[in-house]
């Protein structure tokens, strides 16, 4: 049934060793409906000693867990505080947490936002508005594109795997020659740098070629982002992240951080960005994503990315009816098509017992991909 309710989407990217503790704490305050996916984060780690002569990159990869859940907006500050506190995320290098304003449009009756009862938490340490950049690239390209975030120092990017559907599904059996596996890279930056970073990522990943991928930016209401892009010996009494953090606190905002990174790398060609789009995120049962997306494509969706998620809920909760393996289908559609796609999905049974579906909408600032001549 139609809901159309603005809720908060809280996402945290946490190092595998600390995620369990954070999840347990969230369960304690009443988060019954939590999603988790395995991902990896990248940092620069220069090889020391004898390893420096060995071939191989200077990137270190850490296993991380990406968790997210929907909650009522009035509790978002408390929840962020809780995650920050439990995960000690104010120490650089442990993870990021953020909250987005999204619209929960429709869903199965069991699929709603978490109604969190008020609990006391001190106000969160300094969080600030950011711009999220999501890039969908071919498998194997992830590190190359994510490196841009590391080289420009904006954040520690997070990468997870997905399967792409779209044009290739219309090609009959020949589609096996086009790989469907994707890597989805999430980076977060200040709104001032987002454009330059996007440009650089498009260049790096050659996203202006057909079939190379897709990139878009979206607004993040507030967050605390992990900026520890390099690991290794420190040559100063304080790390650069600590200094930036301290200055953020002192200034009370991030405007002092304005700059235009990579200006010498900027390409001459102007890129034609697409606006007026929305990211429709459909959560459904494992295995149902493909058929639902087929239906959506007939109503105007270009294609989607499907990521496997694990649904975490207390053992005795009514949500146990929903299978713990879920699919997240991310479809980027024009704003005007949202209604039609929703209706088609509903008719295909997305919100019934078969699929336990739920749709929420994420605004897209601008997007880029190959659109043809």
């Amino acid at each position, binding site marked *: 049934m139609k809901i159309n309710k603005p809720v908060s989407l809280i996402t945290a990217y946490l190092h595998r060793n600390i995620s369990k*503790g954070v999840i347990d704490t969230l369960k304690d305050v009443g988060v019954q409906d939590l999603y*988790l996916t395995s*991902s*990896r984060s990248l940092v620069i780690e220069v090889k020391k000693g004898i390893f420096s002569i060995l071939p191989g990159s200077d990137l270190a990869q850490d296993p991380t867990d990406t968790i997210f859940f929907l909650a009522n907006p009035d509790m978002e500050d408390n929840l962020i505080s809780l995650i920050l506190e439990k995960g000690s995320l104010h*120490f650089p290098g442990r993870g990021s947490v953020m909250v987005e304003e999204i619209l929960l449009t429709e869903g199965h009756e069991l699929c709603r936002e978490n109604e969190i009862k008020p609990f006391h938490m001190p106000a969160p340490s300094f969080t600030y508005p950011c711009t999220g950049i999501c890039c969908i690239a071919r498998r194997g390209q992830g590190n190359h594109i994510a490196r841009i975030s590391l080289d420009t120092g904006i954040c520690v990017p997070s990468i997870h795997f997905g399967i792409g559907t779209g044009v290739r599904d219309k090609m009959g059996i020949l589609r096996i020659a086009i790989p469907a596996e994707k890597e989805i890279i999430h980076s977060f930056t200040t709104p001032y740098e987002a454009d330059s970073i996007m440009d650089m990522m498009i260049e790096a990943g050659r996203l202006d070629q057909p079939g190379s991928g897709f990139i878009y930016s979206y607004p993040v209401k507030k967050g605390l982002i992990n900026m520890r892009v390099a690991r290794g010996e420190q040559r100063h009494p304080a790390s650069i992240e600590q200094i930036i953090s301290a200055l953020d606190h002192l200034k009370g905002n991030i405007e002092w951080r304005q700059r235009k990174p990579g200006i010498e790398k900027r390409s001459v060609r102007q890129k034609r960005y697409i606006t007026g789009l929305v990211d429709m995120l459909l959560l459904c049962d*494992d295995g149902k994503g*493909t058929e639902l997306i087929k239906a959506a494509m007939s109503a105007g969706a270009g294609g989607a990315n499907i990521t496997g998620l694990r649904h975490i809920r207390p053992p005795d909760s009514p949500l146990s009816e929903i299978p713990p393996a879920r699919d997240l289908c991310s479809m*980027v559609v024009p704003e005007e098509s949202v209604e039609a796609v929703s209706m088609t999905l509903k008719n295909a049974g997305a919100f019934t017992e078969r699929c336990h579906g739920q749709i929420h909408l994420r605004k897209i600032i601008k997007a880029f991909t190959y659109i043809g001549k």
Partner: protein
Amino acid sequence: MPQQTSQKIRLSMRQAIALLLPYIKDRVVAQIKSVWLIILYLVFFQTFILKIAIFEASAISIGIGLVVAGLALFMEGLFLGLMRLGSLIGGGLPKRSPMIVVLGFGLVLGFLATLAEPSIQILQMAGKSVKPWEAPLLFLLLNRYSNFLVYAVGAGVGASVCLGMLRFYFSISLKPFIYISVGVLLLLTFWASLDPNLNNIIGLAWDCGGVTTGPVTVPLVLALGIGISRMVGTADSGATGFGVVTLASLLPVASVLGLGMYFSGSVPQPMSEKDFFKADNRSGIEMLFKDREALSGYVLKEAGADGRLSFFEGDSRKITQYIEELAGSRDKSRAVFGDEPYALEKWALTQGTEEQTTVFGDLNNMQKFALTYSEKNTSRIDILVLIKKNSISALKAIGLLTIPLFLVLFLLLRESLPYPDEILLGIFFCILGFATFNMGIELGLDKLGKQVGAKLPSSFKAIELTEENKTINDFDPGLVQTAVSGGGEKHQFFYVKEDGKIITVPYNPDNFDRTMRQYQYTPVKGPLFGSGSAVAGILVVILFAFIMGYGATLAEPALNALGATVEELTAGTFKKSLLMQAVAVGVGAGIAIGVLKIVLSIPLVWILLPSYALLLIITKLSTEEFVNIGWDSAGVTTGPITVPLVLAMGVGLSAQVGVVEGFGILAAASVYPILTVLLLGLYVDRKRHAALVEESSPGDVPGEEKQNEDQ
């Protein structure tokens, strides 16, 4: 974004080819990359180190090409079809059926998988050199009761798949399963080593465990396990679903040992060949053979002259009488020798005495026949037979597994397949690829491996090159001369002109056939570093074994599938190549140690017990994630590429070194990869911890919980 229509896109032929070519190229190149090391290495070693020419080189090259093509097809088919099918069933079954049905399904699937995989047949072939008087129980299990062996192993594998799935339902850690099963196995093995008959089957039992999980079973079981563990259980992490392969490598060892113990009461004890064939021992040995004819046939074909005499109560006339009987009756001769034409005559020529040979008619006939028979005996490769045999085996291997899956899918789950054309195409690729690469292995890798394996001992002792058997016609015994050695011993020899050079050949009166006036001799290749430096030669063998194990493992399809799955589940943190390198190094080390076992005649128990004990300690220290991956990698390694090579090498070595049986190398090869992966895991874990600690303020490590590791 422009509106998309939902009609199909039609591609022109050119566009389709432009799309398919890079796709095919990528896959073939990937397989060439994994196979080149082992092939080049074997060729290089035999040609340059051992300095022996490669026999049947053209057949081998074609075989290698087939292996590459077959592997490319098979791997693609695995990912496209078989593993997807496994995931679907794994994900769908727990939703619709109660736990007991899922467990039952696992049991049946495990059993079928064992019947389908050709690995047990390979062990049987290796067992052909086992002598019933040296290892009666082993001989029984490999020949007459080989069916029971397969069923026992099947039961073990079925039980493990069942247990593995039970583990997922209750989110039990793999560690207690490992401690208990390894503990029980080591105790059983130790106890078995005390009985002379059971001692000989220890190698077989452990090898069976390592060999069962083959290139079709492993990816299927992995995909099933991952599918099921996603749907059940309460673990909060992403990387679960492993562990079934581990159990499937451990439990069958117990079932084979159990089978051995069941039969050990009724088999005779090991004894000398002469005693074995004595008349008063007859009732004891009869149960080792299918029937009287089989026993007689064995006596004629495999027993030495002494044994044969003993069988016929010390009276050689009785042997001749028996031969006459066989020569007179086609049926009887077929019952004893099988369907091969002129088998009896061939036997008479090669193993019969003069008297026995003349049963067949006059001298001239026999001479003519001898000439045609002893011409260069290249085994004629019958292409059609090869294709037929391998296609049937592929259909059996994959069909026996996928048909129950489809049945379950359509009957129990009543679900339609997403992308059915891809899945069916994938299964077709699997079958085609499996048949092709098995053909290629038989034509190429196997032959190569057997040659290298048989010649390998030439690095530390003198061996005969039986393929280069030469016959001299119209040999005049007057040509033989005598040489004397430092100790006064006389050695007879004669000169032969060959390829324009004059060489000396040692003279052995037994090789001179007076009736045919022919002398047969086999060239000898001496120790690589000259006699007296056997140690250097043995080192060469061990180094060879290590690199061979390393190279062969990198080519294994099941390991490839496991590595890809691990990379997928850890979202790229643990790269496939890293896992494969770690496992390959471990297998190389294991095979080197196994070879050492044969050359120095170390009992297998001495190698297995300490290695597993060490493993258990390291398992205790490792995280659940790595324990699962590490123990599974061991089960994966010994597959269609490694096993024939290792067995060929083992058989070749043990035949030369004179050991009862050449089993056990595979068992050693299965232990050490676990060690390397677990050690790698410890190192990676330590680095991660260190990185996290670095980030926090001095003195405290907030938020990080030790219980994360033992979920």
